[in-house]
């Protein structure tokens, strides 16, 4: 039983990382209505930007570096949207083109990371934390901080979506872009801000993934991509709250399953859940009408 609770604790950590990533992906999908297949590489680039700030030039605290790295990723995402994706999305009605472009972008970014930092495993410059016993869980201080960051971020996203003008505009655009435009919402500005948020959250997710896993590699984001997709599809694509719930369920399921099966396959459990979702509830747990 203690084994179970230990895994449950790790599951909460994975869920925290996953929630940041899944919400970032969902925000952008809701607005632009196409999936960003380079999202995993956005995460990896964010992780490496943090690494660059943390261990290569400034040698400053990991959490400060994380903020800098994530904001840089946000700026990068805005640039990608402005110069690459939004021209393609505007020019071609069929979503094929922009999807292939994001797929290509993923390949370019992955190889860029390999070209700059090589295929070696890197780790952040941070103190080795003592393991704390909290109830039945066994967690490090860093893992607790990651969980706190995730919870605070989810609350902030919730407050933003429900109370601010920007959040309401985003929800309106997610429901119907044309209608939102006719009511006077500056859709371009909202799209830009959304890409900034999505990029920042990708960078944040990539970094906290690196912190909790203890290392980063250029491919780490891409291998995590299908777990994010599983969380997003389980929650219902385009639904922010669904993405949060999906992240918690997938995070717990992958880690707890490691008690029963070979841990090498724990992430594949996410894919099994993805397939089951498609078979029995293809629109996800919190389906939005008209999105699937």
């Amino acid at each position, binding site marked *: 039983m203690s084994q179970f609770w230990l895994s449950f604790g790790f599951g909460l950590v994975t869920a925290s990382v996953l929630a940041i990533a899944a919400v970032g992906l969902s925000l952008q999908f809701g607005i632009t209505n196409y999936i960003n297949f380079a999202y995993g590489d956005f995460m990896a680039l964010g992780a490496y930007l943090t690494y660059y700030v943390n261990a290569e030039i400034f040698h400053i605290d990991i959490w400060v570096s994380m903020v800098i790295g994530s904001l840089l990723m946000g700026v990068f995402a805005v640039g990608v949207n402005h110069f690459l994706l939004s021209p393609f999305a505007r020019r*071609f009605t069929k979503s094929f083109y922009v999807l292939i*472009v994001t797929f290509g972008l*993923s390949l370019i970014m992955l190889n860029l990371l390999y070209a700059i930092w090589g*295929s070696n495993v890197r780790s952040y410059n941070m103190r080795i934390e003592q393991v704390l016993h909290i109830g039945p869980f066994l967690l490090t201080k860093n893992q607790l901080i990651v969980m706190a960051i995730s919870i605070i971020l989810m609350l902030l996203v919730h407050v933003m979506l429900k109370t601010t003008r920007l959040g309401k505009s985003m929800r309106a655009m997610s429901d119907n872009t044309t*209608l939102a435009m006719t009511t006077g919402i500056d859709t371009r500005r909202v799209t830009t801000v959304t890409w900034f948020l999505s990029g920042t959250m990708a960078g944040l997710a990539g970094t906290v993934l690196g912190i909790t896993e203890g290392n980063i590699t250029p491919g780490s984001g891409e291998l995590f991509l299908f777990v994010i*997709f599983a969380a997003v599809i389980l929650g219902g694509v385009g639904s922010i709250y669904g993405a949060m719930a999906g992240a918690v369920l997938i995070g717990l399921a992958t880690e707890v399953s490691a008690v029963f099966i070979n841990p090498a396959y724990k992430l594949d459990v996410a*894919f099994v859940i993805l397939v089951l979702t498609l078979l029995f509830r293809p629109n996800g747990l919190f389906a939005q009408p008209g999105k*699937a």
Partner: protein
Amino acid sequence: MSAFWYYVFTLVFFLFDYFILAMGLNIQYGETGILNFAYIAFVALGAYVTGAVSMPNSVGTGQQYIFGWGIPFPFNLIMGGVAAMVLAFVVALITLRRLRTDYLAMVLISLSLVFYDIVNNYVRLFNGADGLYNVPEPMSGVFHLTLNAFVPFFALVTGAVALILWGVMSRITRSPLGRTFRAIRDDPDVAAALGKGVFRYQLTSMLIGSFYAGVGGGLLIQFGGSFNPTAWLPGETFVVFAVIIVGGVGNNVGLLMGALLVETLLIHLPAFLPNIPGHPGLIEYIDTMVVGVVLMLMLWFRPQGVVPERLRRFPQPAGELANRDGHSVAPPEQSHYVAAITTDDSEPKDAQ
């Protein structure tokens, strides 16, 4: 046989092999509009099965793999193709009926990553990360070729296989089946409204394409004699997409052109460049980035590819076809498909 010709025939092999792979993806993406981001997984399955059924029983070989039946050359290739079809059938049953394009692409790319993970970790399947090696040379019992003679020989065999598959593919794309595929690509709802069972046609297209993928993969493992997970990272799917988009979606001649430009010139020729000292692999990384950039530039400036899809002409009433002088009227300058792409600028995007 000098080293030069050895390299040339290696390039010729990859040209023909990627032509086969491109035809398979083209019928799925280019003709039917299925965005198969897991294509390389079908290629890999074909390669592994081709290798594993042709190898002797795994006991005592120092490798672990299933099958091991010692099946000779053309038959193991067919089994590889059929194995890829079986995977496609299962995948199509789960995904095709329920999902719109980008969900399908999400699930397929996940499949590709998970399949990679499983083959890597479950060593008893196809020898895990080490991959299969010492795969028996095809027709070694008949010809007894040295390695230098084998490369041109097998390049020509691949050419022959590509020729047969090309003939079959031309027949398919020109048949009513091919027309239905293109109708579904252009608008699945309209095709469904005209009474075409979209799912059945998409399934058929997936199966045909996967057979080509499996055969192309099988030729890869037979050519190299080994195959391991580094050969089919999920990004490899993108290379095949680059081949068909650069060459010309929906045009079989264009695919051969794409295979020549992308696979032979962009991917394999730079592999012969000397490494930059102190940066192992740098050329390969830059090369892959160049492929990505080339593809984006092609999509933007010439989305129809180097050799565009031909306008298919169908018999029309004689009065419409001929003008007063009795000469036939020239067809419209641009094909329907190209026109559909270029007019997208002016079309308002439908609210989704």
